Protein backbone atom coordinates (compact mmCIF):
# COMPACT_ATOMS: atom_id res chain seq x y z
CA UNK A 1 0.00 0.00 0.00
CA UNK A 2 2.75 2.43 1.00
CA UNK A 3 6.29 2.13 -0.28
CA UNK A 4 9.03 4.42 0.91
CA UNK A 5 12.01 3.76 -1.32
CA UNK A 6 15.46 5.02 -0.34
CA UNK A 7 14.17 8.35 0.95
CA UNK A 8 16.65 10.88 2.32
CA UNK A 9 16.34 14.32 3.81
CA UNK A 10 19.28 16.64 4.30
CA UNK A 11 18.96 19.79 6.40
CA UNK A 12 22.17 21.67 5.58
CA UNK A 13 24.96 19.49 6.92
CA UNK A 14 22.62 17.19 8.83
CA UNK A 15 21.36 14.01 7.23
CA UNK A 16 18.05 13.74 9.11
CA UNK A 17 16.89 10.69 7.17
CA UNK A 18 19.41 8.62 5.22
CA UNK A 19 17.95 6.44 2.44
CA UNK A 20 15.22 4.95 4.58
CA UNK A 21 13.12 2.18 3.06
CA UNK A 22 9.80 1.01 4.41
CA UNK A 23 6.88 -0.84 2.97
CA UNK A 24 3.41 -1.38 4.39
CA UNK A 25 0.82 -3.96 3.43
CA UNK A 26 -2.83 -3.04 3.70
CA UNK A 27 -4.24 -3.50 7.20
CA UNK A 28 -2.59 -3.88 10.57
CA UNK A 29 -0.56 -1.63 12.81
CA UNK A 30 3.10 -0.99 12.15
CA UNK A 31 5.34 0.79 14.62
CA UNK A 32 8.16 3.19 13.88
CA UNK A 33 10.49 3.46 16.84
CA UNK A 34 13.93 4.85 17.49
CA UNK A 35 15.83 7.10 19.86
CA UNK A 36 15.12 10.84 20.01
CA UNK A 37 16.36 12.69 16.95
CA UNK A 38 16.42 9.55 14.82
CA UNK A 39 14.39 11.24 12.07
CA UNK A 40 11.02 9.57 12.70
CA UNK A 41 8.96 12.74 12.52
CA UNK A 42 10.88 13.94 9.45
CA UNK A 43 10.06 10.64 7.75
CA UNK A 44 6.39 11.13 8.67
CA UNK A 45 6.46 14.65 7.29
CA UNK A 46 7.85 13.34 4.02
CA UNK A 47 5.15 10.67 3.78
CA UNK A 48 2.41 13.23 4.47
CA UNK A 49 3.92 15.84 2.15
CA UNK A 50 5.01 18.59 4.53
CA UNK A 51 8.71 18.07 3.84
CA UNK A 52 10.09 17.34 0.38
CA UNK A 53 12.66 14.53 0.32
CA UNK A 54 16.15 15.32 -0.96
CA UNK A 55 16.26 11.90 -2.57
CA UNK A 56 14.13 8.78 -3.02
CA UNK A 57 10.53 7.97 -3.98
CA UNK A 58 7.29 7.55 -2.08
CA UNK A 59 4.49 5.49 -3.57
CA UNK A 60 0.94 5.12 -2.28
CA UNK A 61 -1.36 2.49 -3.80
CA UNK A 62 0.84 2.33 -6.87
CA UNK A 63 0.93 6.08 -7.52
CA UNK A 64 4.11 8.12 -7.13
CA UNK A 65 3.22 10.83 -4.61
CA UNK A 66 6.74 12.10 -3.90
CA UNK A 67 6.02 15.62 -5.14
CA UNK A 68 2.36 15.93 -4.16
CA UNK A 69 0.95 18.62 -1.87
CA UNK A 70 -0.26 17.55 1.60
CA UNK A 71 -3.93 18.18 0.80
CA UNK A 72 -3.75 15.94 -2.28
CA UNK A 73 -2.33 13.13 -0.15
CA UNK A 74 -5.15 13.63 2.36
CA UNK A 75 -7.60 13.26 -0.54
CA UNK A 76 -5.89 10.02 -1.52
CA UNK A 77 -6.44 8.74 1.99
CA UNK A 78 -3.34 9.54 4.02
CA UNK A 79 -4.28 11.01 7.40
CA UNK A 80 -1.80 12.23 9.99
CA UNK A 81 -1.66 13.58 13.52
CA UNK A 82 0.94 16.00 14.80
CA UNK A 83 3.35 15.21 17.62
CA UNK A 84 2.89 18.77 18.87
CA UNK A 85 -0.88 19.00 18.88
CA UNK A 86 -2.28 21.61 16.49
CA UNK A 87 -5.90 22.26 17.45
CA UNK A 88 -7.90 25.06 15.84
CA UNK A 89 -8.00 26.73 19.24
CA UNK A 90 -10.75 29.24 18.46
CA UNK A 91 -13.18 26.55 17.31
CA UNK A 92 -15.21 24.03 19.27
CA UNK A 93 -14.30 20.36 19.32
CA UNK A 94 -17.12 19.58 16.91
CA UNK A 95 -16.04 22.30 14.47
CA UNK A 96 -12.45 21.07 14.64
CA UNK A 97 -13.42 17.55 13.67
CA UNK A 98 -15.87 18.83 11.03
CA UNK A 99 -12.98 20.45 9.14
CA UNK A 100 -11.65 16.93 8.59
CA UNK A 101 -15.10 15.55 7.79
CA UNK A 102 -15.66 18.21 5.11
CA UNK A 103 -13.03 16.46 3.00
CA UNK A 104 -15.52 13.76 2.05
CA UNK A 105 -18.82 15.45 2.96
CA UNK A 106 -19.61 18.75 1.25
CA UNK A 107 -22.79 19.45 3.22
CA UNK A 108 -22.63 20.97 6.68
CA UNK A 109 -25.22 18.60 8.13
CA UNK A 110 -23.34 15.52 6.85
CA UNK A 111 -19.96 16.82 8.01
CA UNK A 112 -21.32 17.65 11.46
CA UNK A 113 -22.97 14.25 11.76
CA UNK A 114 -19.69 12.57 10.80
CA UNK A 115 -17.82 14.75 13.29
CA UNK A 116 -20.18 13.74 16.09
CA UNK A 117 -19.87 10.08 15.24
CA UNK A 118 -16.06 10.25 15.24
CA UNK A 119 -16.04 12.25 18.48
CA UNK A 120 -18.06 9.54 20.22
CA UNK A 121 -15.71 6.88 18.89
CA UNK A 122 -12.60 8.48 20.37
CA UNK A 123 -14.36 9.43 23.61
CA UNK A 124 -14.89 13.14 23.01
CA UNK A 125 -18.67 12.86 22.88
CA UNK A 126 -19.15 14.93 26.00
CA UNK A 127 -16.85 17.74 24.88
CA UNK A 128 -18.38 18.46 21.47
CA UNK A 129 -19.33 22.06 22.16
CA UNK A 130 -16.30 23.00 24.24
CA UNK A 131 -13.64 25.24 22.73
CA UNK A 132 -10.69 23.11 21.61
CA UNK A 133 -8.30 25.48 23.39
CA UNK A 134 -9.82 24.41 26.72
CA UNK A 135 -9.15 20.68 26.38
CA UNK A 136 -6.71 18.77 28.56
CA UNK A 137 -3.57 17.23 27.03
CA UNK A 138 -5.32 13.88 26.74
CA UNK A 139 -8.32 15.60 25.18
CA UNK A 140 -6.15 17.34 22.61
CA UNK A 141 -4.48 14.07 21.65
CA UNK A 142 -7.90 12.52 21.14
CA UNK A 143 -8.89 15.56 19.08
CA UNK A 144 -5.85 15.09 16.81
CA UNK A 145 -6.89 11.50 16.32
CA UNK A 146 -10.54 12.42 15.72
CA UNK A 147 -9.76 15.07 13.13
CA UNK A 148 -7.52 12.72 11.17
CA UNK A 149 -10.14 9.95 11.40
CA UNK A 150 -12.85 12.27 10.14
CA UNK A 151 -11.03 12.48 6.79
CA UNK A 152 -11.78 8.74 6.47
CA UNK A 153 -8.17 7.76 5.76
CA UNK A 154 -6.94 4.46 4.38
CA UNK A 155 -3.55 5.01 5.98
CA UNK A 156 -3.29 6.76 9.32
CA UNK A 157 0.05 8.17 10.52
CA UNK A 158 0.04 8.60 14.28
CA UNK A 159 2.90 10.69 15.65
CA UNK A 160 3.22 9.93 19.36
CA UNK A 161 -0.45 10.08 20.21
CA UNK A 162 0.30 8.47 23.57
CA UNK A 163 3.10 10.81 24.65
CA UNK A 164 2.21 12.93 27.65
CA UNK A 165 -0.65 10.68 28.73
CA UNK A 166 -0.75 8.92 32.09
CA UNK A 167 -1.04 5.11 32.27
CA UNK A 168 -4.80 5.09 32.74
CA UNK A 169 -5.30 7.45 29.80
CA UNK A 170 -3.08 5.18 27.68
CA UNK A 171 -5.17 2.20 28.75
CA UNK A 172 -8.29 4.06 27.61
CA UNK A 173 -6.97 4.99 24.18
CA UNK A 174 -5.37 1.69 23.15
CA UNK A 175 -8.73 0.00 22.44
CA UNK A 176 -9.68 3.03 20.35
CA UNK A 177 -6.61 2.57 18.14
CA UNK A 178 -7.28 -1.15 17.91
CA UNK A 179 -10.87 -0.40 16.89
CA UNK A 180 -9.65 1.84 14.07
CA UNK A 181 -7.44 -0.99 12.79
CA UNK A 182 -10.32 -3.45 12.97
CA UNK A 183 -12.29 -1.22 10.61
CA UNK A 184 -9.59 -1.75 7.99
CA UNK A 185 -7.50 1.38 8.40
CA UNK A 186 -3.78 0.75 8.03
CA UNK A 187 -1.85 2.42 10.83
CA UNK A 188 1.77 3.52 11.02
CA UNK A 189 2.62 4.86 14.46
CA UNK A 190 5.64 6.56 15.96
CA UNK A 191 5.67 5.63 19.60
CA UNK A 192 7.96 5.78 22.61
CA UNK A 193 5.62 4.00 24.98
CA UNK A 194 7.03 0.47 24.53
CA UNK A 195 4.17 -1.18 26.37
CA UNK A 196 1.84 0.15 23.68
CA UNK A 197 4.19 -0.81 20.84
CA UNK A 198 4.41 -4.39 22.14
CA UNK A 199 0.66 -4.46 22.61
CA UNK A 200 -0.50 -2.98 19.34
CA UNK A 201 2.07 -3.44 16.60
CA UNK A 202 2.41 -6.50 14.44
CA UNK A 203 5.61 -5.18 12.92
CA UNK A 204 8.13 -2.57 13.91
CA UNK A 205 10.66 -0.51 12.00
CA UNK A 206 13.60 0.95 13.91
CA UNK A 207 15.18 4.20 12.81
CA UNK A 208 18.46 5.39 14.34
CA UNK A 209 20.44 8.40 13.20
CA UNK A 210 18.38 8.57 10.03
CA UNK A 211 18.98 4.96 9.00
CA UNK A 212 16.56 2.05 9.13
CA UNK A 213 18.49 -0.45 11.28
CA UNK A 214 15.96 -3.19 11.91
CA UNK A 215 12.50 -4.43 11.10
CA UNK A 216 10.33 -7.31 12.22
CA UNK A 217 7.93 -8.40 14.96
CA UNK A 218 8.37 -6.25 18.10
CA UNK A 219 9.66 -9.07 20.33
CA UNK A 220 12.39 -9.96 17.82
CA UNK A 221 13.37 -6.36 17.14
CA UNK A 222 13.70 -5.54 20.84
CA UNK A 223 16.21 -8.35 21.28
CA UNK A 224 18.24 -7.17 18.27
CA UNK A 225 21.77 -6.15 19.24
CA UNK A 226 21.80 -3.11 16.93
CA UNK A 227 18.52 -1.82 18.36
CA UNK A 228 19.65 -2.14 21.97
CA UNK A 229 22.91 -0.38 21.13
CA UNK A 230 21.09 2.39 19.28
CA UNK A 231 19.16 3.15 22.45
CA UNK A 232 21.71 2.38 25.13
CA UNK A 233 25.09 2.90 23.47
CA UNK A 234 27.88 0.78 22.07
CA UNK A 235 28.55 -2.43 23.99
CA UNK A 236 25.28 -2.28 25.89
CA UNK A 237 23.90 -5.44 24.31
CA UNK A 238 26.91 -7.51 25.37
CA UNK A 239 26.79 -6.03 28.87
CA UNK A 240 23.07 -6.80 29.22
CA UNK A 241 23.66 -10.34 28.07
CA UNK A 242 26.50 -10.81 30.54
CA UNK A 243 24.39 -9.38 33.38
CA UNK A 244 21.50 -11.61 32.34
CA UNK A 245 23.76 -14.67 32.45
CA UNK A 246 25.16 -13.67 35.86
CA UNK A 247 21.68 -13.28 37.36
CA UNK A 248 20.29 -16.32 35.57
Amino acid at each position, binding site marked *: MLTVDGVSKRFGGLMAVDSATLSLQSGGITGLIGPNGAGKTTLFSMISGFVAPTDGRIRFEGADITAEEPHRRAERGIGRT*FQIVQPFAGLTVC*ENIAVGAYLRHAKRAD*ATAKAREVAHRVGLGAELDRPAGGLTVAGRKRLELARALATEPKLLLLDEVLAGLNPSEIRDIIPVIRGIRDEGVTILMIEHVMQAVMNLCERVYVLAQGRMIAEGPPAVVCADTRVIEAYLGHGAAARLKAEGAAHG
Partner: protein
Amino acid sequence: MTARDLIPIAVLTVLAALLPLVVTSSPVLNFLVFMLIVALGAQGWNILGGFGGQFSFGHAAFFGTGAYVTAILQLRFGVNAWAGLVLATLAGAAVGWAIGFLSFRSGLRGSYFALVTLAFAEVFRILANAASVTGGAAGLLIKLDVHPANLQFGDRAVFYWLVLALVAAVLLLTRWIQRSRFGAQLVAVRENEDAAKALGVNSLTVKLRAIALSGGVTALSGCLYAQYFLYVDANIAYGSWISVELLLAPIIGGVGTVFGPVVGALTLHGLGEVAKQFAGRIPGIDLIVFGGVLVLAVAFARGGILGLLERVRDRGRGMMARGPKEVSHADR
Protein backbone atom coordinates in the same frame (compact mmCIF):
# COMPACT_ATOMS: atom_id res chain seq x y z
CA MET B 1 -28.71 28.04 6.60
CA THR B 2 -31.63 27.83 9.00
CA ALA B 3 -34.34 30.36 9.80
CA ARG B 4 -32.44 31.22 12.96
CA ASP B 5 -29.49 32.26 10.81
CA LEU B 6 -31.58 34.50 8.59
CA ILE B 7 -34.08 36.17 10.91
CA PRO B 8 -31.65 38.64 12.57
CA ILE B 9 -30.45 39.78 9.15
CA ALA B 10 -34.01 40.22 7.88
CA VAL B 11 -35.19 42.10 10.99
CA LEU B 12 -32.25 44.52 11.03
CA THR B 13 -32.53 45.18 7.30
CA VAL B 14 -36.25 45.95 7.52
CA LEU B 15 -35.73 48.25 10.53
CA ALA B 16 -32.90 50.08 8.76
CA ALA B 17 -35.01 50.36 5.61
CA LEU B 18 -37.73 52.18 7.57
CA LEU B 19 -35.27 54.85 8.73
CA PRO B 20 -35.61 57.26 5.73
CA LEU B 21 -39.36 57.40 6.38
CA VAL B 22 -38.63 58.96 9.78
CA VAL B 23 -35.44 60.88 9.01
CA THR B 24 -35.63 63.18 6.03
CA SER B 25 -32.77 65.62 6.69
CA SER B 26 -30.12 65.41 3.94
CA PRO B 27 -27.05 65.62 6.20
CA VAL B 28 -28.30 62.67 8.23
CA LEU B 29 -29.05 60.66 5.08
CA ASN B 30 -25.64 61.60 3.68
CA PHE B 31 -24.08 60.35 6.87
CA LEU B 32 -26.05 57.10 6.76
CA VAL B 33 -25.15 56.42 3.13
CA PHE B 34 -21.45 57.09 3.76
CA MET B 35 -21.55 54.92 6.88
CA LEU B 36 -23.18 52.05 4.96
CA ILE B 37 -20.61 52.35 2.15
CA VAL B 38 -17.82 52.03 4.71
CA ALA B 39 -19.69 49.12 6.32
CA LEU B 40 -19.92 47.35 2.95
CA GLY B 41 -16.20 47.79 2.29
CA ALA B 42 -15.46 46.60 5.81
CA GLN B 43 -17.59 43.51 5.19
CA GLY B 44 -15.29 42.81 2.27
CA TRP B 45 -12.22 43.18 4.48
CA ASN B 46 -13.80 40.91 7.08
CA ILE B 47 -14.15 37.98 4.65
CA LEU B 48 -10.39 37.86 4.17
CA GLY B 49 -9.16 39.36 7.44
CA GLY B 50 -11.82 38.12 9.83
CA PHE B 51 -12.59 34.64 8.52
CA GLY B 52 -9.31 34.00 6.72
CA GLY B 53 -7.00 35.67 9.26
CA GLN B 54 -5.08 37.42 6.45
CA PHE B 55 -4.88 41.03 7.67
CA SER B 56 -4.73 43.43 4.76
CA PHE B 57 -3.53 46.99 5.30
CA GLY B 58 -4.26 47.88 1.71
CA HIS B 59 -7.92 47.28 0.96
CA ALA B 60 -7.83 50.71 -0.68
CA ALA B 61 -6.43 48.78 -3.66
CA PHE B 62 -9.88 47.21 -4.13
CA PHE B 63 -11.96 50.20 -3.03
CA GLY B 64 -10.11 52.44 -5.48
CA THR B 65 -10.29 49.92 -8.29
CA GLY B 66 -14.06 49.79 -7.89
CA ALA B 67 -14.33 53.59 -7.90
CA TYR B 68 -12.04 54.12 -10.88
CA VAL B 69 -13.37 51.26 -13.01
CA THR B 70 -16.94 52.52 -12.92
CA ALA B 71 -15.88 56.16 -13.45
CA ILE B 72 -13.57 55.35 -16.37
CA LEU B 73 -16.06 52.98 -18.01
CA GLN B 74 -18.78 55.63 -17.87
CA LEU B 75 -16.64 58.59 -18.91
CA ARG B 76 -14.31 57.09 -21.48
CA PHE B 77 -16.38 54.24 -22.88
CA GLY B 78 -19.94 55.36 -22.30
CA VAL B 79 -20.82 52.22 -20.38
CA ASN B 80 -24.07 52.25 -18.40
CA ALA B 81 -23.60 52.90 -14.66
CA TRP B 82 -25.35 49.69 -13.61
CA ALA B 83 -23.11 47.66 -15.90
CA GLY B 84 -20.21 49.68 -14.46
CA LEU B 85 -21.26 48.53 -10.99
CA VAL B 86 -21.08 44.88 -12.01
CA LEU B 87 -17.82 45.27 -13.93
CA ALA B 88 -16.22 47.24 -11.08
CA THR B 89 -17.08 44.41 -8.69
CA LEU B 90 -15.58 41.84 -11.05
CA ALA B 91 -12.47 44.01 -11.52
CA GLY B 92 -12.05 44.17 -7.73
CA ALA B 93 -12.31 40.39 -7.52
CA ALA B 94 -9.73 40.02 -10.31
CA VAL B 95 -7.31 42.44 -8.63
CA GLY B 96 -7.84 40.57 -5.36
CA TRP B 97 -7.11 37.25 -7.00
CA ALA B 98 -3.96 38.65 -8.65
CA ILE B 99 -2.59 40.18 -5.44
CA GLY B 100 -3.46 36.98 -3.62
CA PHE B 101 -1.82 34.81 -6.25
CA LEU B 102 1.42 36.80 -6.04
CA SER B 103 1.59 36.97 -2.26
CA PHE B 104 0.04 33.67 -1.10
CA ARG B 105 1.96 31.60 -3.62
CA SER B 106 5.19 32.96 -2.20
CA GLY B 107 3.89 31.97 1.23
CA LEU B 108 3.51 35.49 2.65
CA ARG B 109 1.64 35.56 5.95
CA GLY B 110 0.99 37.89 8.86
CA SER B 111 2.83 41.19 8.83
CA TYR B 112 4.54 40.42 5.50
CA PHE B 113 1.19 40.00 3.80
CA ALA B 114 -0.05 43.21 5.46
CA LEU B 115 2.95 45.16 4.17
CA VAL B 116 2.63 43.79 0.65
CA THR B 117 -1.04 44.81 0.45
CA LEU B 118 -0.12 48.26 1.75
CA ALA B 119 2.54 48.51 -0.97
CA PHE B 120 0.07 47.49 -3.69
CA ALA B 121 -2.40 50.16 -2.58
CA GLU B 122 0.33 52.81 -2.56
CA VAL B 123 1.57 51.81 -6.02
CA PHE B 124 -1.99 52.04 -7.34
CA ARG B 125 -2.37 55.45 -5.72
CA ILE B 126 0.80 56.80 -7.31
CA LEU B 127 -0.08 55.34 -10.72
CA ALA B 128 -3.63 56.72 -10.59
CA ASN B 129 -2.23 60.10 -9.64
CA ALA B 130 0.07 60.11 -12.66
CA ALA B 131 -1.80 58.34 -15.45
CA SER B 132 -3.99 60.28 -17.89
CA VAL B 133 -6.74 57.65 -18.09
CA THR B 134 -7.51 58.27 -14.40
CA GLY B 135 -7.51 62.03 -14.85
CA GLY B 136 -4.22 62.38 -12.99
CA ALA B 137 -4.21 64.57 -9.90
CA ALA B 138 -7.37 66.36 -11.02
CA GLY B 139 -9.39 63.18 -10.66
CA LEU B 140 -12.57 62.24 -12.51
CA LEU B 141 -16.01 63.82 -12.33
CA ILE B 142 -18.88 61.49 -13.20
CA LYS B 143 -21.40 63.48 -15.22
CA LEU B 144 -24.40 64.57 -13.22
CA ASP B 145 -27.42 63.11 -14.96
CA VAL B 146 -30.11 62.22 -12.48
CA HIS B 147 -31.94 59.20 -13.76
CA PRO B 148 -32.40 55.74 -12.23
CA ALA B 149 -30.85 54.23 -15.38
CA ASN B 150 -27.67 56.18 -14.56
CA LEU B 151 -27.64 55.01 -10.96
CA GLN B 152 -28.33 58.58 -9.84
CA PHE B 153 -31.46 59.31 -7.89
CA GLY B 154 -33.28 62.55 -7.10
CA ASP B 155 -34.10 61.23 -3.65
CA ARG B 156 -31.16 60.34 -1.41
CA ALA B 157 -33.33 57.73 0.30
CA VAL B 158 -33.33 55.59 -2.85
CA PHE B 159 -29.54 55.42 -2.88
CA TYR B 160 -29.66 54.61 0.83
CA TRP B 161 -31.98 51.68 0.13
CA LEU B 162 -29.75 50.47 -2.67
CA VAL B 163 -26.64 50.46 -0.45
CA LEU B 164 -28.63 48.89 2.37
CA ALA B 165 -29.83 46.11 0.07
CA LEU B 166 -26.23 45.37 -0.93
CA VAL B 167 -25.08 45.40 2.71
CA ALA B 168 -27.89 42.94 3.49
CA ALA B 169 -26.85 40.78 0.55
CA VAL B 170 -23.29 40.64 1.86
CA LEU B 171 -24.59 39.84 5.35
CA LEU B 172 -26.30 36.83 3.77
CA LEU B 173 -23.13 35.96 1.85
CA THR B 174 -21.11 36.14 5.06
CA ARG B 175 -23.64 33.99 6.89
CA TRP B 176 -23.46 31.46 4.07
CA ILE B 177 -19.65 31.46 4.31
CA GLN B 178 -19.92 30.86 8.05
CA ARG B 179 -22.17 27.84 7.51
CA SER B 180 -20.40 26.34 4.50
CA ARG B 181 -17.51 24.01 3.84
CA PHE B 182 -15.60 26.92 2.29
CA GLY B 183 -16.03 28.93 5.51
CA ALA B 184 -14.96 26.04 7.73
CA GLN B 185 -11.84 25.55 5.64
CA LEU B 186 -11.11 29.28 5.61
CA VAL B 187 -11.35 29.49 9.40
CA ALA B 188 -9.21 26.36 9.70
CA VAL B 189 -6.51 28.03 7.61
CA ARG B 190 -6.73 31.08 9.89
CA GLU B 191 -6.38 28.99 13.02
CA ASN B 192 -3.60 26.66 11.84
CA GLU B 193 -2.58 26.35 8.23
CA ASP B 194 -0.51 23.17 8.55
CA ALA B 195 -3.22 21.32 10.43
CA ALA B 196 -5.72 22.42 7.78
CA LYS B 197 -3.49 21.06 4.99
CA ALA B 198 -3.15 17.74 6.77
CA LEU B 199 -6.95 17.51 6.76
CA GLY B 200 -7.08 17.91 3.00
CA VAL B 201 -7.65 21.67 2.80
CA ASN B 202 -6.06 23.27 -0.26
CA SER B 203 -5.03 26.40 1.61
CA LEU B 204 -3.91 28.32 -1.49
CA THR B 205 -7.24 27.86 -3.27
CA VAL B 206 -9.20 28.70 -0.14
CA LYS B 207 -7.23 31.90 0.43
CA LEU B 208 -7.50 32.92 -3.23
CA ARG B 209 -11.28 32.48 -3.16
CA ALA B 210 -11.44 34.55 0.00
CA ILE B 211 -9.34 37.42 -1.35
CA ALA B 212 -11.30 37.45 -4.64
CA LEU B 213 -14.62 37.66 -2.75
CA SER B 214 -13.16 40.23 -0.41
CA GLY B 215 -11.80 42.34 -3.26
CA GLY B 216 -15.10 42.14 -5.12
CA VAL B 217 -17.20 43.30 -2.16
CA THR B 218 -14.81 46.13 -1.29
CA ALA B 219 -14.66 47.23 -4.95
CA LEU B 220 -18.47 47.33 -4.92
CA SER B 221 -18.33 49.75 -2.00
CA GLY B 222 -15.76 51.91 -3.83
CA CYS B 223 -17.97 51.96 -6.89
CA LEU B 224 -20.95 53.11 -4.80
CA TYR B 225 -18.78 55.81 -3.24
CA ALA B 226 -17.84 57.18 -6.67
CA GLN B 227 -21.44 56.93 -7.82
CA TYR B 228 -22.79 58.76 -4.77
CA PHE B 229 -20.29 61.61 -4.64
CA LEU B 230 -19.78 61.61 -8.46
CA TYR B 231 -16.10 62.33 -7.99
CA VAL B 232 -12.97 60.26 -7.52
CA ASP B 233 -9.29 61.09 -7.25
CA ALA B 234 -6.23 59.08 -6.29
CA ASN B 235 -6.13 60.16 -2.66
CA ILE B 236 -9.79 59.34 -2.08
CA ALA B 237 -9.83 56.08 -4.03
CA TYR B 238 -6.46 54.61 -3.12
CA GLY B 239 -5.68 56.68 -0.01
CA SER B 240 -4.61 54.92 3.16
CA TRP B 241 -7.56 56.53 5.01
CA ILE B 242 -9.93 53.99 3.48
CA SER B 243 -7.60 51.02 4.16
CA VAL B 244 -7.59 52.05 7.81
CA GLU B 245 -11.37 52.61 7.95
CA LEU B 246 -12.05 49.21 6.41
CA LEU B 247 -9.96 47.33 8.94
CA LEU B 248 -10.92 49.43 11.97
CA ALA B 249 -14.65 48.79 11.59
CA PRO B 250 -14.45 44.96 11.82
CA ILE B 251 -11.87 45.09 14.60
CA ILE B 252 -14.07 47.41 16.66
CA GLY B 253 -17.28 45.57 15.81
CA GLY B 254 -16.05 41.98 16.02
CA VAL B 255 -13.56 40.39 13.68
CA GLY B 256 -14.73 37.25 11.87
CA THR B 257 -18.39 37.79 12.77
CA VAL B 258 -21.31 38.41 10.44
CA PHE B 259 -22.46 41.71 11.94
CA GLY B 260 -19.10 42.97 13.25
CA PRO B 261 -18.18 45.25 10.32
CA VAL B 262 -21.60 46.91 10.29
CA VAL B 263 -21.68 47.38 14.06
CA GLY B 264 -18.12 48.73 13.97
CA ALA B 265 -18.78 51.19 11.14
CA LEU B 266 -21.94 52.42 12.85
CA THR B 267 -20.15 52.84 16.19
CA LEU B 268 -17.09 54.58 14.78
CA HIS B 269 -18.93 56.98 12.52
CA GLY B 270 -21.72 57.52 15.02
CA LEU B 271 -19.25 58.54 17.71
CA GLY B 272 -17.25 60.56 15.17
CA GLU B 273 -20.35 62.54 14.20
CA VAL B 274 -21.35 63.13 17.81
CA ALA B 275 -17.83 64.38 18.55
CA LYS B 276 -18.01 66.72 15.57
CA GLN B 277 -21.32 68.11 16.83
CA PHE B 278 -19.86 68.93 20.22
CA ALA B 279 -16.33 69.91 19.26
CA GLY B 280 -16.59 70.66 15.55
CA ARG B 281 -14.03 73.45 15.80
CA ILE B 282 -11.24 71.02 16.67
CA PRO B 283 -10.03 69.63 13.34
CA GLY B 284 -9.71 65.86 13.22
CA ILE B 285 -11.76 65.30 16.37
CA ASP B 286 -13.47 62.31 14.78
CA LEU B 287 -10.10 60.68 14.08
CA ILE B 288 -9.13 61.22 17.72
CA VAL B 289 -12.34 59.44 18.68
CA PHE B 290 -11.52 56.58 16.27
CA GLY B 291 -8.12 56.19 17.95
CA GLY B 292 -9.65 56.23 21.40
CA VAL B 293 -12.25 53.62 20.49
CA LEU B 294 -9.57 51.40 18.95
CA VAL B 295 -7.47 51.58 22.12
CA LEU B 296 -10.48 50.70 24.24
CA ALA B 297 -11.45 47.82 21.95
CA VAL B 298 -7.97 46.34 21.92
CA ALA B 299 -7.56 46.70 25.67
CA PHE B 300 -10.98 45.59 26.88
CA ALA B 301 -12.86 43.89 24.05
CA ARG B 302 -10.62 41.56 22.06
CA GLY B 303 -13.55 40.13 20.15
CA GLY B 304 -14.86 43.64 19.41
CA ILE B 305 -18.22 44.93 20.56
CA LEU B 306 -20.01 41.70 19.61
CA GLY B 307 -17.42 39.62 21.45
CA LEU B 308 -17.89 41.81 24.50
CA LEU B 309 -21.68 41.44 24.34
CA GLU B 310 -21.37 37.69 24.08
CA ARG B 311 -19.10 37.55 27.10
CA VAL B 312 -21.50 39.69 29.11
CA ARG B 313 -24.33 37.39 28.07
CA ASP B 314 -22.35 34.27 28.97
CA ARG B 315 -21.42 35.76 32.33
CA GLY B 316 -25.10 36.51 32.89
CA ARG B 317 -25.84 32.86 32.35
CA GLY B 318 -23.07 31.91 34.73
CA MET B 319 -21.21 30.12 32.00
CA MET B 320 -17.74 31.34 32.76
CA ALA B 321 -16.24 28.02 31.80
CA ARG B 322 -15.23 29.70 28.55
CA GLY B 323 -12.34 32.07 28.98
CA PRO B 324 -12.21 35.29 26.97
CA LYS B 325 -9.74 33.85 24.49
CA GLU B 326 -11.74 30.72 24.02
CA VAL B 327 -14.95 32.30 22.82
CA SER B 328 -16.21 30.43 19.78
CA HIS B 329 -16.49 32.33 16.54
CA ALA B 330 -19.30 30.15 15.35
CA ASP B 331 -22.38 31.53 17.02
CA ARG B 332 -21.83 35.21 16.45
